[in-house]
């Protein structure tokens, strides 16, 4: 009895190999698709911004006149926003991560907080905007100022920092902790002097990535109520402000009225992308340079 009909197999072999080859090319093309769109997107934005980015554009205040409009206000607003988001999200994120990894390890509470954080990461940013509007801007009566926007953004990016810090803390080997206990150190002394310094590069990478997420977000701040045309420059955390992506939003929607606004939006996008690219490069640099492999 023959188990395999060689002729039959032989006959099908050609189509099977052809299908394999075709599929491989198809898979490759779909991988390229995303990258081609990326190239077109960047080309389009850069092409539209040519001639619009100069010193005046960077240093001028906002204006309804496209020729005079600049983004100094949005740049300062972005910096002020980072000044609020960075410390708040760092304290909250690292504190939560230490608690989960060092104190509440494998407890029920840890599971609960962990599930809560991963669900929080899936809440749409616009809903965080509603939270910010209701609690920070209205209930605490801050208005649409840097502090209200910064606290909202800090909560929005909190899961990023928590997860990154947890991973960094988990990567510190147990024997380092045990050596520290063996020297007579207490738990907190061990965390403060051994665990945190060893996990700092990973934590910093997470914080920078969270910040770059925060300054690229638009929806929560639009919901909090950032005006479309804000002339005065922000001078502290209790001032009204605008940031680069919000400015892109208003210029894009108004480009139906004044065509040049589309160029201003494109120019702002170029600046925003450069800032984000720089921040991400720094994060990768820190990760590669200072991350210790145990």
């Amino acid at each position, binding site marked *: 009895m023959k188990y395999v009909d060689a002729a039959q197999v032989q006959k099908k072999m050609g189509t099977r190999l052809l299908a394999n080859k075709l599929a491989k090319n198809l898979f490759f093309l779909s991988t390229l698709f995303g990258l081609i769109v990326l190239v077109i997107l960047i080309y389009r934005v850069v092409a539209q911004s040519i001639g619009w980015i100069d010193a005046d554009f960077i240093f001028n205040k906002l204006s309804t006149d496209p020729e005079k409009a600049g983004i100094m206000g949005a740049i300062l607003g972005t910096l002020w926003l980072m000044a609020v988001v960075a410390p708040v999200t760092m304290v909250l994120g690292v504190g939560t991560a230490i608690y989960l990894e060092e104190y509440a390890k494998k407890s029920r509470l840890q599971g609960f907080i962990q599930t809560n954080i991963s669900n929080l990461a899936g809440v749409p940013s616009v809903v965080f905007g*509603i939270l910010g509007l209701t609690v920070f801007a209205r209930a605490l009566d801050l208005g649409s100022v840097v502090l209200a926007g910064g606290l909202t953004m800090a909560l929005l990016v909190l*899961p990023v920092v928590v997860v990154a810090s947890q991973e960094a803390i988990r990567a510190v080997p147990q024997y380092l902790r045990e050596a520290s206990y063996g020297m007579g150190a207490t738990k907190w002394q061990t965390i403060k002097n051994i665990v945190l310094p060893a996990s700092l590069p990973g934590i910093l990478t997470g914080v920078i990535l969270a910040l770059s997420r925060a300054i690229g977000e638009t929806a929560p701040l639009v919901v909090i109520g950032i005006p479309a045309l804000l002339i005065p420059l922000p001078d502290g955390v209790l001032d009204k402000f605008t940031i680069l992506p919000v400015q892109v939003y208003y210029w894009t929607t108004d480009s139906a009225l004044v065509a040049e606004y589309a160029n201003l939006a494109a120019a702002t996008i170029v600046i925003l992308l450069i800032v984000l690219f720089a921040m991400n490069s720094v994060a990768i640099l820190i990760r590669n340079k200072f991350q210790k492999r145990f």
Partner: protein
Amino acid sequence: MPESGTGLDVRGMIAKKRKSASIRTVVEKLVPRILFGIAAISVLTTIGILLTLLTETVIFFERVPFLDFFTGTKLKPLGEEAVFGVLPLLTGTLLSSAIAMVVAIPIGLMTAIFLSEYASEKLRRTLKPLLEILAGIPTIVYGFFAFTFVTPLLRSFIPGLEPTNILSPGIVMGIMIIPMVASLSEDAMSAVPNAMREGALALGATKLEVTLKVVVPAAISGIIASFVLGISRAIGETMIVAIASGSSKNFTFDVTQSMQTMTAYIVEVTGGEAAAGTTLYYSLYAVAMTLFVFTLVMNLVAQYISRKFREEY
């Protein structure tokens, strides 16, 4: 007071040691409590979101009957005879998400297959960071791209397409989600042990057959979870639709028309500074609540799928 006979103040040293030890004990006891307080803030955030949405939504449903809201096909929030039916927003949201997934699921999955099964290690290491750039571009930039490039491009093919429509933001949203679907699916496929691939190859299967009949079925829980998370992301996506889909509250299934999603409605109403206390203001919370429930359910489903149907190797 007992007299100390020697030059060494032993008692003093013991007292000093006790004092620093007791400070240390207090610190040791205090730190976990402070850290617990910090960790509780993430839980408080969730409670805060739920409470703000719930309290205002309840007030909204005191003014607008529950059934009218969820079965109403007309949304006219302004004017004397305001009508609040959420169906136009729901269809807008579901249509744009469906279009996005039609783009993101096949391309994302095929990208994942290429990266995990076909690409050489070197090629993979160049392609993955490039895809991560795609994932890191702010959504507002995609919105700009949809509005100023994709819509005009589509209009040259589809004559009836309105300047703002749901098709173009849907497609761009799909492109935005490709890296997410690709990277999560690829993780799932990379976790399939090589022994299974080699077993199938040894039986004479081609690479395509190995991929489709062994790797994909073995990784299916992770792959489906990535699709569900992609849908959740599409439902919650705001800026692309806020810019490119317009603000007409049409109840239609015609993708060439201007439509509004739930997220874009929230942006429009808050941007117009709805006065607190008006029904318009409360409608914001009812819509946000609906959106929150939708995405939460999707996320829970994704977690359930990846936990329940995971094959352990």
